Protein backbone atom coordinates (compact mmCIF):
# COMPACT_ATOMS: atom_id res chain seq x y z
CA UNK A 1 0.00 0.00 0.00
CA UNK A 2 1.18 3.51 -0.76
CA UNK A 3 0.39 6.97 0.50
CA UNK A 4 -0.88 9.56 -1.96
CA UNK A 5 2.47 11.29 -1.81
CA UNK A 6 4.29 8.06 -2.63
CA UNK A 7 1.97 7.41 -5.59
CA UNK A 8 2.54 10.90 -7.01
CA UNK A 9 6.31 10.83 -6.44
CA UNK A 10 6.50 7.36 -7.98
CA UNK A 11 4.65 8.57 -11.10
CA UNK A 12 6.86 11.65 -11.36
CA UNK A 13 10.02 9.59 -10.90
CA UNK A 14 8.90 7.21 -13.65
CA UNK A 15 8.63 9.94 -16.26
CA UNK A 16 11.84 11.66 -15.15
CA UNK A 17 14.05 8.60 -15.43
CA UNK A 18 14.01 7.45 -11.83
CA UNK A 19 14.68 10.82 -10.25
CA UNK A 20 12.22 12.83 -8.21
CA UNK A 21 12.91 16.37 -9.26
CA UNK A 22 10.95 19.49 -8.66
CA UNK A 23 11.05 21.52 -11.84
CA UNK A 24 7.46 20.61 -12.60
CA UNK A 25 5.03 23.16 -13.91
CA UNK A 26 1.92 21.35 -12.75
CA UNK A 27 1.33 21.98 -9.08
CA UNK A 28 1.08 19.19 -6.54
CA UNK A 29 -2.51 20.15 -5.77
CA UNK A 30 -3.48 19.73 -9.39
CA UNK A 31 -1.86 16.29 -9.53
CA UNK A 32 -3.72 15.34 -6.33
CA UNK A 33 -7.05 16.23 -7.93
CA UNK A 34 -6.07 14.22 -10.97
CA UNK A 35 -5.17 11.27 -8.74
CA UNK A 36 -8.64 11.35 -7.19
CA UNK A 37 -10.17 11.40 -10.67
CA UNK A 38 -8.04 8.44 -11.73
CA UNK A 39 -9.09 6.53 -8.62
CA UNK A 40 -12.75 7.22 -9.38
CA UNK A 41 -12.32 5.90 -12.92
CA UNK A 42 -10.61 2.74 -11.64
CA UNK A 43 -13.28 2.09 -9.01
CA UNK A 44 -16.15 2.58 -11.45
CA UNK A 45 -14.52 0.33 -14.05
CA UNK A 46 -13.68 -2.32 -11.44
CA UNK A 47 -17.26 -2.29 -10.13
CA UNK A 48 -18.77 -2.51 -13.61
CA UNK A 49 -16.65 -5.62 -14.33
CA UNK A 50 -16.88 -7.43 -10.99
CA UNK A 51 -19.98 -5.99 -9.34
CA UNK A 52 -18.07 -5.67 -6.08
CA UNK A 53 -16.60 -2.87 -4.05
CA UNK A 54 -13.04 -3.52 -2.90
CA UNK A 55 -12.71 -3.13 0.89
CA UNK A 56 -9.51 -1.08 0.44
CA UNK A 57 -11.55 1.75 -1.09
CA UNK A 58 -13.70 2.29 1.96
CA UNK A 59 -13.07 5.11 4.42
CA UNK A 60 -14.78 6.16 7.60
CA UNK A 61 -16.25 9.57 8.21
CA UNK A 62 -17.61 10.79 11.52
CA UNK A 63 -20.24 13.49 10.89
CA UNK A 64 -20.11 16.33 13.41
CA UNK A 65 -23.24 17.87 14.85
CA UNK A 66 -23.49 21.57 14.11
CA UNK A 67 -26.47 23.25 15.78
CA UNK A 68 -26.30 26.19 13.37
CA UNK A 69 -26.87 23.85 10.46
CA UNK A 70 -30.21 22.50 11.75
CA UNK A 71 -33.35 23.84 10.07
CA UNK A 72 -36.02 21.39 11.20
CA UNK A 73 -36.84 19.44 14.36
CA UNK A 74 -37.80 16.40 12.27
CA UNK A 75 -34.31 15.69 11.07
CA UNK A 76 -30.62 16.20 11.84
CA UNK A 77 -28.54 17.61 9.03
CA UNK A 78 -24.85 16.79 8.64
CA UNK A 79 -22.17 17.83 6.22
CA UNK A 80 -20.94 14.69 4.46
CA UNK A 81 -18.16 14.28 1.89
CA UNK A 82 -19.15 13.51 -1.68
CA UNK A 83 -19.38 9.88 -2.70
CA UNK A 84 -18.71 7.98 -5.89
CA UNK A 85 -21.55 6.75 -8.09
CA UNK A 86 -21.22 3.39 -9.83
CA UNK A 87 -22.69 2.14 -13.07
CA UNK A 88 -25.92 0.43 -12.02
CA UNK A 89 -27.27 3.11 -9.72
CA UNK A 90 -25.26 1.87 -6.76
CA UNK A 91 -23.19 4.50 -5.06
CA UNK A 92 -20.31 4.66 -2.63
CA UNK A 93 -22.36 5.18 0.53
CA UNK A 94 -22.04 1.83 2.30
CA UNK A 95 -23.13 2.65 5.81
CA UNK A 96 -24.69 5.53 7.67
CA UNK A 97 -25.72 4.99 11.26
CA UNK A 98 -24.63 4.62 14.83
CA UNK A 99 -20.98 3.99 15.61
CA UNK A 100 -21.19 2.38 19.03
CA UNK A 101 -22.78 -0.85 20.22
CA UNK A 102 -24.81 -2.84 17.76
CA UNK A 103 -24.52 -1.05 14.47
CA UNK A 104 -27.74 0.58 13.41
CA UNK A 105 -27.68 1.04 9.68
CA UNK A 106 -30.14 3.77 8.81
CA UNK A 107 -32.42 2.93 5.92
CA UNK A 108 -31.26 4.73 2.84
CA UNK A 109 -33.85 6.88 1.11
CA UNK A 110 -32.95 7.64 -2.47
CA UNK A 111 -35.00 10.79 -3.00
CA UNK A 112 -37.10 13.34 -1.18
CA UNK A 113 -40.17 12.12 -3.05
CA UNK A 114 -39.60 8.60 -1.72
CA UNK A 115 -39.15 10.00 1.77
CA UNK A 116 -42.39 11.96 1.51
CA UNK A 117 -44.26 8.87 0.33
CA UNK A 118 -42.91 6.78 3.21
CA UNK A 119 -43.68 9.41 5.80
CA UNK A 120 -47.24 9.71 4.54
CA UNK A 121 -47.85 5.98 4.35
CA UNK A 122 -50.05 4.81 7.21
CA UNK A 123 -48.17 1.60 7.99
CA UNK A 124 -44.67 2.75 7.19
CA UNK A 125 -45.06 5.86 9.29
CA UNK A 126 -46.00 3.82 12.37
CA UNK A 127 -43.35 1.15 11.96
CA UNK A 128 -40.68 3.51 10.77
CA UNK A 129 -37.02 2.93 11.32
CA UNK A 130 -34.22 5.47 11.15
CA UNK A 131 -33.89 6.91 7.68
CA UNK A 132 -31.12 8.82 5.97
CA UNK A 133 -31.32 10.90 2.83
CA UNK A 134 -27.98 11.78 1.23
CA UNK A 135 -27.82 14.39 -1.50
CA UNK A 136 -24.85 16.36 -2.81
CA UNK A 137 -22.71 16.45 0.30
CA UNK A 138 -25.54 16.80 2.81
CA UNK A 139 -26.92 13.96 4.92
CA UNK A 140 -30.36 14.25 6.55
CA UNK A 141 -31.04 11.77 9.34
CA UNK A 142 -34.69 11.10 10.30
CA UNK A 143 -34.49 9.25 13.58
CA UNK A 144 -36.85 8.30 16.38
CA UNK A 145 -34.33 9.05 19.11
CA UNK A 146 -31.20 11.14 19.55
CA UNK A 147 -28.27 10.03 17.41
CA UNK A 148 -25.13 9.18 19.34
CA UNK A 149 -21.86 9.34 17.45
CA UNK A 150 -23.03 8.80 13.87
CA UNK A 151 -20.62 7.21 11.46
CA UNK A 152 -20.47 6.99 7.70
CA UNK A 153 -18.53 4.43 5.67
CA UNK A 154 -18.16 4.72 1.97
CA UNK A 155 -16.17 5.18 -1.17
CA UNK A 156 -15.62 8.91 -1.18
CA UNK A 157 -14.91 11.01 -4.23
CA UNK A 158 -12.03 12.93 -2.60
CA UNK A 159 -10.33 10.72 -0.02
CA UNK A 160 -8.08 13.59 1.05
CA UNK A 161 -11.09 15.55 2.32
CA UNK A 162 -11.90 12.98 5.00
CA UNK A 163 -10.68 14.49 8.30
CA UNK A 164 -9.10 11.22 9.46
CA UNK A 165 -7.11 10.85 6.24
CA UNK A 166 -3.51 12.00 6.42
CA UNK A 167 -2.00 12.78 3.01
CA UNK A 168 1.53 12.13 4.17
CA UNK A 169 0.97 9.00 6.23
CA UNK A 170 -2.34 7.27 5.44
CA UNK A 171 -2.55 4.57 2.81
CA UNK A 172 -4.42 5.92 -0.20
CA UNK A 173 -7.75 4.06 -0.29
CA UNK A 174 -7.12 2.00 -3.38
CA UNK A 175 -6.27 -1.67 -3.95
CA UNK A 176 -2.74 -2.52 -5.20
CA UNK A 177 -3.87 -3.10 -8.80
CA UNK A 178 -5.64 0.24 -8.65
CA UNK A 179 -2.47 1.96 -7.45
CA UNK A 180 -0.62 0.57 -10.47
CA UNK A 181 -3.42 1.82 -12.75
CA UNK A 182 -3.38 5.22 -11.05
CA UNK A 183 0.37 5.71 -11.53
CA UNK A 184 0.00 4.91 -15.23
CA UNK A 185 -3.03 7.19 -15.45
CA UNK A 186 -1.06 10.08 -13.91
CA UNK A 187 1.86 9.39 -16.20
CA UNK A 188 -0.29 9.38 -19.31
CA UNK A 189 -2.72 12.17 -18.55
CA UNK A 190 -0.63 14.71 -16.67
CA UNK A 191 3.07 14.06 -16.53
CA UNK A 192 3.85 12.94 -20.08
CA UNK A 193 1.86 15.88 -21.38
CA UNK A 194 3.88 18.19 -19.20
CA UNK A 195 7.15 16.81 -20.50
CA UNK A 196 6.07 16.98 -24.15
CA UNK A 197 4.61 20.48 -23.83
CA UNK A 198 7.11 23.30 -23.51
CA UNK A 199 6.08 25.44 -20.62
CA UNK A 200 5.71 29.19 -20.75
CA UNK A 201 8.18 29.55 -17.93
CA UNK A 202 8.92 33.24 -18.48
CA UNK A 203 6.89 35.56 -16.26
CA UNK A 204 6.22 38.17 -18.93
CA UNK A 205 2.47 37.87 -19.42
CA UNK A 206 2.98 36.55 -22.96
CA UNK A 207 2.60 32.96 -24.11
CA UNK A 208 6.10 32.59 -25.51
CA UNK A 209 5.42 29.06 -26.78
CA UNK A 210 2.61 30.18 -29.08
CA UNK A 211 0.55 27.13 -28.24
CA UNK A 212 -2.56 26.80 -30.41
CA UNK A 213 -5.52 28.55 -28.86
CA UNK A 214 -8.96 27.04 -28.57
CA UNK A 215 -11.07 27.67 -31.67
CA UNK A 216 -14.57 29.00 -31.07
Amino acid at each position, binding site marked *: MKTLRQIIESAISTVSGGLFI*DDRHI*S*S*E*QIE*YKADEGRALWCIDYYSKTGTIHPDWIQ*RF*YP*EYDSEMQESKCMTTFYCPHILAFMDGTDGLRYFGAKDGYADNFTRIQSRAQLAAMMNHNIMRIGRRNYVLYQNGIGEAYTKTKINDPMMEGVFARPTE*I*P*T*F*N*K*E*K*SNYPLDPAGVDYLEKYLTQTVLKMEISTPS*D*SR*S*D*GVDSNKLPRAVK
Partner: protein
Amino acid sequence: MTSGLELKKYFENKVDKSYSKFVDNTKLNRIFKMALSNLSEKKYMGLETQKEYDEMRYAIHTEMVFPISNNKISIAPLMISNITTTGFIVTITTLTEHNLDIGQVVNVSGVQGLSTTPNINGEITVYNIPSPTSFSYVATFIGGTYTPNTGLITHNRMIDDYLHLFTVKCKTRENIRGLQVSQCLNRTPVITIFNKHNNLATGEKIVIANHPNNDINGTFYYEAITTKKGRLWMDETRLLAVVAPDSSDAGGTVSREYYEYAEPLYSDRKISSFEVSTPTNPKVQTADAFLKFSPDTTEITIDYFSSNIAEVDVSNNTFDLELVFPFKLLMRLVDEAIMIYTSPSRDALLNNLTERGMTP
Protein backbone atom coordinates in the same frame (compact mmCIF):
# COMPACT_ATOMS: atom_id res chain seq x y z
CA MET B 1 50.92 25.54 -4.19
CA THR B 2 49.13 27.86 -6.61
CA SER B 3 49.03 31.47 -5.52
CA GLY B 4 47.52 34.41 -7.40
CA LEU B 5 51.01 35.21 -8.68
CA GLU B 6 51.33 31.65 -10.02
CA LEU B 7 48.01 32.04 -11.84
CA LYS B 8 49.32 35.20 -13.42
CA LYS B 9 52.32 33.19 -14.72
CA TYR B 10 50.02 30.53 -16.18
CA PHE B 11 48.07 33.31 -17.84
CA GLU B 12 51.23 34.86 -19.27
CA ASN B 13 52.47 31.47 -20.48
CA LYS B 14 49.31 30.94 -22.46
CA VAL B 15 49.04 34.49 -23.75
CA ASP B 16 52.08 35.84 -25.53
CA LYS B 17 54.33 37.48 -22.94
CA SER B 18 54.73 40.76 -24.83
CA TYR B 19 51.04 40.75 -25.56
CA SER B 20 50.14 40.30 -21.90
CA LYS B 21 52.30 43.26 -20.98
CA PHE B 22 49.25 45.36 -21.75
CA VAL B 23 47.58 43.88 -18.68
CA ASP B 24 48.56 45.31 -15.33
CA ASN B 25 47.75 43.65 -12.02
CA THR B 26 44.63 45.75 -11.37
CA LYS B 27 43.22 44.89 -14.79
CA LEU B 28 44.17 41.24 -14.41
CA ASN B 29 42.49 41.03 -11.00
CA ARG B 30 39.36 42.44 -12.61
CA ILE B 31 39.56 39.88 -15.42
CA PHE B 32 40.00 37.02 -12.94
CA LYS B 33 37.02 38.29 -10.94
CA MET B 34 34.87 38.25 -14.06
CA ALA B 35 36.26 34.85 -15.01
CA LEU B 36 35.47 33.42 -11.59
CA SER B 37 31.93 34.76 -11.73
CA ASN B 38 31.38 33.39 -15.25
CA LEU B 39 32.89 30.06 -14.37
CA SER B 40 30.87 29.60 -11.21
CA GLU B 41 27.69 30.40 -13.16
CA LYS B 42 28.67 27.87 -15.82
CA LYS B 43 29.48 25.27 -13.19
CA TYR B 44 26.21 26.04 -11.39
CA MET B 45 24.30 25.47 -14.62
CA GLY B 46 26.20 22.22 -15.18
CA LEU B 47 25.94 20.77 -11.68
CA GLU B 48 25.08 17.27 -12.79
CA THR B 49 27.85 14.94 -11.76
CA GLN B 50 29.96 14.56 -8.65
CA LYS B 51 32.89 16.18 -10.53
CA GLU B 52 31.17 19.57 -10.72
CA TYR B 53 30.07 19.38 -7.11
CA ASP B 54 33.64 18.58 -6.06
CA GLU B 55 35.01 21.50 -8.03
CA MET B 56 32.58 23.96 -6.47
CA ARG B 57 32.79 22.48 -2.99
CA TYR B 58 33.29 25.83 -1.27
CA ALA B 59 30.46 27.50 -3.13
CA ILE B 60 27.87 24.87 -2.28
CA HIS B 61 26.25 25.09 1.14
CA THR B 62 23.80 22.47 2.31
CA GLU B 63 21.61 21.93 5.37
CA MET B 64 22.11 25.47 6.61
CA VAL B 65 19.55 26.36 9.28
CA PHE B 66 18.23 29.90 9.66
CA PRO B 67 15.49 31.33 11.89
CA ILE B 68 12.81 33.25 9.97
CA SER B 69 11.25 36.58 10.92
CA ASN B 70 8.03 37.75 9.28
CA ASN B 71 8.13 34.83 6.82
CA LYS B 72 11.14 36.16 4.94
CA ILE B 73 14.92 36.20 5.03
CA SER B 74 17.34 38.73 3.49
CA ILE B 75 19.58 37.32 0.80
CA ALA B 76 21.85 40.33 0.38
CA PRO B 77 23.63 42.67 2.81
CA LEU B 78 21.57 45.76 3.68
CA MET B 79 22.82 49.03 2.29
CA ILE B 80 22.77 52.05 4.58
CA SER B 81 21.40 55.21 2.99
CA ASN B 82 21.45 57.58 5.96
CA ILE B 83 22.37 57.84 9.64
CA THR B 84 20.97 60.47 12.00
CA THR B 85 21.64 61.07 15.70
CA THR B 86 19.39 62.44 18.42
CA GLY B 87 20.97 62.64 21.87
CA PHE B 88 22.47 59.20 22.39
CA ILE B 89 20.22 57.48 19.87
CA VAL B 90 21.71 56.67 16.48
CA THR B 91 19.10 55.94 13.79
CA ILE B 92 20.21 54.03 10.73
CA THR B 93 18.10 54.16 7.58
CA THR B 94 18.45 51.32 5.11
CA LEU B 95 17.83 51.42 1.39
CA THR B 96 15.45 48.45 1.55
CA GLU B 97 13.33 46.84 4.27
CA HIS B 98 15.62 45.52 7.03
CA ASN B 99 13.33 42.90 8.67
CA LEU B 100 15.13 43.25 12.01
CA ASP B 101 13.78 42.67 15.51
CA ILE B 102 14.43 44.63 18.71
CA GLY B 103 17.39 43.17 20.59
CA GLN B 104 18.91 41.60 17.48
CA VAL B 105 22.67 42.01 17.02
CA VAL B 106 23.85 43.23 13.62
CA ASN B 107 27.27 43.80 12.05
CA VAL B 108 27.89 47.15 10.45
CA SER B 109 30.87 47.82 8.19
CA GLY B 110 32.08 50.51 5.83
CA VAL B 111 30.38 53.48 7.49
CA GLN B 112 32.45 56.59 6.85
CA GLY B 113 32.61 59.92 8.66
CA LEU B 114 30.77 58.91 11.83
CA SER B 115 32.28 57.43 14.97
CA THR B 116 30.35 56.17 17.98
CA THR B 117 30.81 54.12 21.11
CA PRO B 118 30.16 51.22 20.63
CA ASN B 119 31.99 51.42 17.33
CA ILE B 120 29.46 51.79 14.52
CA ASN B 121 31.70 49.67 12.31
CA GLY B 122 31.20 46.61 14.46
CA GLU B 123 28.50 44.75 16.37
CA ILE B 124 25.53 46.83 17.53
CA THR B 125 22.29 45.84 19.21
CA VAL B 126 18.94 47.03 17.81
CA TYR B 127 17.26 49.24 20.40
CA ASN B 128 14.19 50.44 18.52
CA ILE B 129 12.53 50.05 15.12
CA PRO B 130 10.75 53.28 14.05
CA SER B 131 9.95 51.99 10.55
CA PRO B 132 10.55 48.97 8.29
CA THR B 133 13.54 50.78 6.77
CA SER B 134 15.08 52.26 9.93
CA PHE B 135 16.30 51.13 13.30
CA SER B 136 18.25 52.69 16.13
CA TYR B 137 20.85 51.81 18.72
CA VAL B 138 22.13 53.52 21.84
CA ALA B 139 25.60 55.10 21.83
CA THR B 140 27.51 56.66 24.73
CA PHE B 141 29.62 58.77 22.38
CA ILE B 142 28.83 60.23 18.96
CA GLY B 143 31.28 62.17 16.81
CA GLY B 144 31.78 63.23 13.18
CA THR B 145 29.33 63.51 10.28
CA TYR B 146 28.05 60.54 8.33
CA THR B 147 29.02 60.29 4.67
CA PRO B 148 25.74 59.38 2.92
CA ASN B 149 25.34 55.99 1.21
CA THR B 150 28.28 54.36 2.94
CA GLY B 151 28.08 51.21 5.02
CA LEU B 152 26.60 47.72 4.90
CA ILE B 153 24.71 45.63 7.45
CA THR B 154 24.92 41.89 7.87
CA HIS B 155 23.55 39.66 10.61
CA ASN B 156 23.13 35.97 11.39
CA ARG B 157 19.49 35.95 10.28
CA MET B 158 20.37 36.74 6.68
CA ILE B 159 22.07 34.75 3.94
CA ASP B 160 24.53 37.43 2.86
CA ASP B 161 26.42 35.14 0.47
CA TYR B 162 23.33 33.78 -1.29
CA LEU B 163 23.58 33.48 -5.06
CA HIS B 164 21.23 30.69 -6.23
CA LEU B 165 18.75 28.44 -4.48
CA PHE B 166 18.97 24.66 -4.64
CA THR B 167 16.30 23.60 -2.14
CA VAL B 168 14.72 24.97 0.98
CA LYS B 169 12.77 23.20 3.68
CA CYS B 170 10.26 25.18 5.77
CA LYS B 171 9.15 24.61 9.34
CA THR B 172 5.46 25.40 9.45
CA ARG B 173 2.65 24.78 11.86
CA GLU B 174 -0.95 23.79 11.23
CA ASN B 175 -3.51 24.51 13.94
CA ILE B 176 -6.06 21.72 14.00
CA ARG B 177 -9.33 23.54 14.39
CA GLY B 178 -11.42 22.53 17.37
CA LEU B 179 -9.15 19.68 18.46
CA GLN B 180 -8.54 19.39 22.20
CA VAL B 181 -7.20 16.76 24.56
CA SER B 182 -10.22 15.68 26.59
CA GLN B 183 -8.58 12.98 28.70
CA CYS B 184 -5.13 11.74 29.74
CA LEU B 185 -4.37 8.20 30.89
CA ASN B 186 -1.29 7.73 33.07
CA ARG B 187 0.54 5.04 31.11
CA THR B 188 4.10 4.75 29.84
CA PRO B 189 3.95 6.84 27.76
CA VAL B 190 0.87 8.92 28.54
CA ILE B 191 -2.19 8.21 26.38
CA THR B 192 -4.17 11.21 25.20
CA ILE B 193 -7.80 10.98 24.14
CA PHE B 194 -9.08 13.76 21.90
CA ASN B 195 -12.52 15.34 21.72
CA LYS B 196 -12.98 14.30 18.09
CA HIS B 197 -11.65 12.02 15.40
CA ASN B 198 -8.57 13.39 13.65
CA ASN B 199 -5.84 12.46 11.18
CA LEU B 200 -2.85 12.71 13.51
CA ALA B 201 -0.51 9.94 12.38
CA THR B 202 2.33 8.01 13.95
CA GLY B 203 5.64 9.86 13.69
CA GLU B 204 4.12 13.33 13.42
CA LYS B 205 5.33 16.17 15.60
CA ILE B 206 2.50 17.79 17.52
CA VAL B 207 2.34 20.81 19.78
CA ILE B 208 -0.12 20.87 22.67
CA ALA B 209 -0.58 24.25 24.36
CA ASN B 210 -2.62 25.74 27.20
CA HIS B 211 -3.91 22.41 28.49
CA PRO B 212 -4.87 22.29 32.21
CA ASN B 213 -2.63 19.24 32.66
CA ASN B 214 0.66 21.07 32.24
CA ASP B 215 2.70 17.87 31.77
CA ILE B 216 1.27 17.40 28.29
CA ASN B 217 1.94 20.96 27.13
CA GLY B 218 4.86 21.04 24.71
CA THR B 219 6.16 19.55 21.47
CA PHE B 220 5.94 15.77 21.18
CA TYR B 221 6.08 12.93 18.71
CA TYR B 222 2.77 11.16 18.27
CA GLU B 223 1.94 7.49 18.00
CA ALA B 224 -1.62 6.92 16.83
CA ILE B 225 -3.64 4.14 18.46
CA THR B 226 -7.02 5.03 16.96
CA THR B 227 -8.31 8.14 15.20
CA LYS B 228 -9.15 9.58 18.61
CA LYS B 229 -6.42 8.21 20.86
CA GLY B 230 -2.62 8.19 20.84
CA ARG B 231 0.64 8.06 22.79
CA LEU B 232 3.08 10.93 23.30
CA TRP B 233 6.85 10.52 22.98
CA MET B 234 9.71 12.91 23.58
CA ASP B 235 11.78 11.71 20.61
CA GLU B 236 11.20 10.67 17.02
CA THR B 237 12.46 7.12 17.59
CA ARG B 238 9.85 6.72 20.37
CA LEU B 239 12.23 5.67 23.12
CA LEU B 240 11.69 8.46 25.65
CA ALA B 241 8.17 8.34 27.03
CA VAL B 242 6.14 11.36 28.12
CA VAL B 243 4.85 10.91 31.64
CA ALA B 244 1.73 12.68 32.93
CA PRO B 245 -0.91 11.99 35.58
CA ASP B 246 -4.50 10.94 34.82
CA SER B 247 -6.77 13.85 34.02
CA SER B 248 -10.17 14.36 32.51
CA ASP B 249 -10.00 18.11 31.98
CA ALA B 250 -10.57 19.12 28.38
CA GLY B 251 -8.87 22.17 26.99
CA GLY B 252 -5.90 23.66 25.20
CA THR B 253 -5.06 23.58 21.52
CA VAL B 254 -3.37 21.05 19.29
CA SER B 255 -1.26 21.90 16.29
CA ARG B 256 0.98 19.91 14.04
CA GLU B 257 4.51 20.84 12.97
CA TYR B 258 5.75 20.19 9.46
CA TYR B 259 9.22 20.50 7.94
CA GLU B 260 8.63 20.20 4.22
CA TYR B 261 10.48 21.22 1.06
CA ALA B 262 9.10 24.37 -0.55
CA GLU B 263 8.18 24.68 -4.20
CA PRO B 264 9.07 27.87 -6.05
CA LEU B 265 6.16 30.22 -6.67
CA TYR B 266 6.46 32.42 -9.76
CA SER B 267 4.35 35.50 -10.31
CA ASP B 268 2.51 34.30 -13.40
CA ARG B 269 1.43 31.11 -11.63
CA LYS B 270 -0.27 32.85 -8.73
CA ILE B 271 -3.32 33.14 -10.97
CA SER B 272 -3.95 29.40 -10.60
CA SER B 273 -6.24 28.27 -7.81
CA PHE B 274 -4.03 25.20 -7.44
CA GLU B 275 -0.98 27.28 -6.47
CA VAL B 276 -2.01 27.58 -2.87
CA SER B 277 0.62 27.16 -0.21
CA THR B 278 -0.21 24.80 2.63
CA PRO B 279 1.83 23.57 5.60
CA THR B 280 2.45 20.33 3.70
CA ASN B 281 3.22 22.16 0.49
CA PRO B 282 4.97 25.44 1.31
CA LYS B 283 6.04 27.91 -1.37
CA VAL B 284 9.05 30.15 -1.75
CA GLN B 285 9.49 33.23 -3.91
CA THR B 286 12.43 35.56 -4.46
CA ALA B 287 11.60 39.27 -4.33
CA ASP B 288 12.77 42.54 -2.78
CA ALA B 289 16.13 40.99 -1.82
CA PHE B 290 14.31 38.41 0.30
CA LEU B 291 13.32 34.80 0.10
CA LYS B 292 9.64 34.94 1.06
CA PHE B 293 7.85 31.92 2.45
CA SER B 294 4.23 30.93 2.78
CA PRO B 295 2.39 29.81 4.85
CA ASP B 296 3.84 31.10 8.16
CA THR B 297 7.39 29.77 8.51
CA THR B 298 9.56 29.91 11.62
CA GLU B 299 12.74 28.19 10.43
CA ILE B 300 14.30 27.03 7.19
CA THR B 301 16.96 24.52 6.20
CA ILE B 302 18.46 25.64 2.93
CA ASP B 303 20.87 24.32 0.30
CA TYR B 304 22.23 27.17 -1.81
CA PHE B 305 25.00 28.26 -4.11
CA SER B 306 27.18 30.87 -2.50
CA SER B 307 28.50 34.07 -4.01
CA ASN B 308 31.29 34.09 -1.44
CA ILE B 309 34.08 32.60 -3.49
CA ALA B 310 37.72 33.41 -2.83
CA GLU B 311 38.97 36.22 -5.05
CA VAL B 312 42.20 35.99 -7.00
CA ASP B 313 44.90 38.55 -6.26
CA VAL B 314 47.60 38.18 -8.88
CA SER B 315 50.16 40.02 -6.72
CA ASN B 316 49.74 37.61 -3.80
CA ASN B 317 52.30 34.84 -3.55
CA THR B 318 51.44 33.50 -0.08
CA PHE B 319 47.77 32.37 -0.16
CA ASP B 320 47.39 28.93 -1.70
CA LEU B 321 44.31 29.01 -3.94
CA GLU B 322 44.36 25.20 -4.04
CA LEU B 323 43.01 25.32 -0.49
CA VAL B 324 39.69 26.55 -1.85
CA PHE B 325 39.67 25.44 -5.50
CA PRO B 326 40.95 22.21 -7.07
CA PHE B 327 43.97 22.76 -9.35
CA LYS B 328 41.97 21.69 -12.38
CA LEU B 329 39.41 24.39 -11.73
CA LEU B 330 42.17 26.98 -11.41
CA MET B 331 43.48 25.96 -14.85
CA ARG B 332 39.93 26.26 -16.19
CA LEU B 333 39.81 29.69 -14.59
CA VAL B 334 42.94 30.77 -16.48
CA ASP B 335 41.29 29.64 -19.74
CA GLU B 336 38.16 31.59 -18.84
CA ALA B 337 40.27 34.66 -18.09
CA ILE B 338 42.01 34.35 -21.45
CA MET B 339 38.64 34.13 -23.19
CA ILE B 340 37.58 37.36 -21.49
CA TYR B 341 40.91 38.97 -22.33
CA THR B 342 40.93 37.95 -25.99
CA SER B 343 37.35 38.88 -26.86
CA PRO B 344 37.73 42.67 -26.67
CA SER B 345 41.23 42.53 -28.18
CA ARG B 346 39.65 40.74 -31.18
CA ASP B 347 42.33 38.08 -31.19
CA ALA B 348 40.28 35.42 -32.91
CA LEU B 349 43.19 33.01 -33.23
CA LEU B 350 44.05 33.01 -29.51
CA ASN B 351 40.34 32.88 -28.67
CA ASN B 352 39.82 29.83 -30.88
CA LEU B 353 42.96 28.11 -29.63
CA THR B 354 41.91 28.63 -25.99
CA GLU B 355 38.38 27.45 -26.68
CA ARG B 356 39.67 24.30 -28.34
CA GLY B 357 42.13 23.47 -25.60
CA MET B 358 39.97 24.53 -22.67
CA THR B 359 40.35 22.51 -19.48
CA PRO B 360 37.20 20.38 -19.07
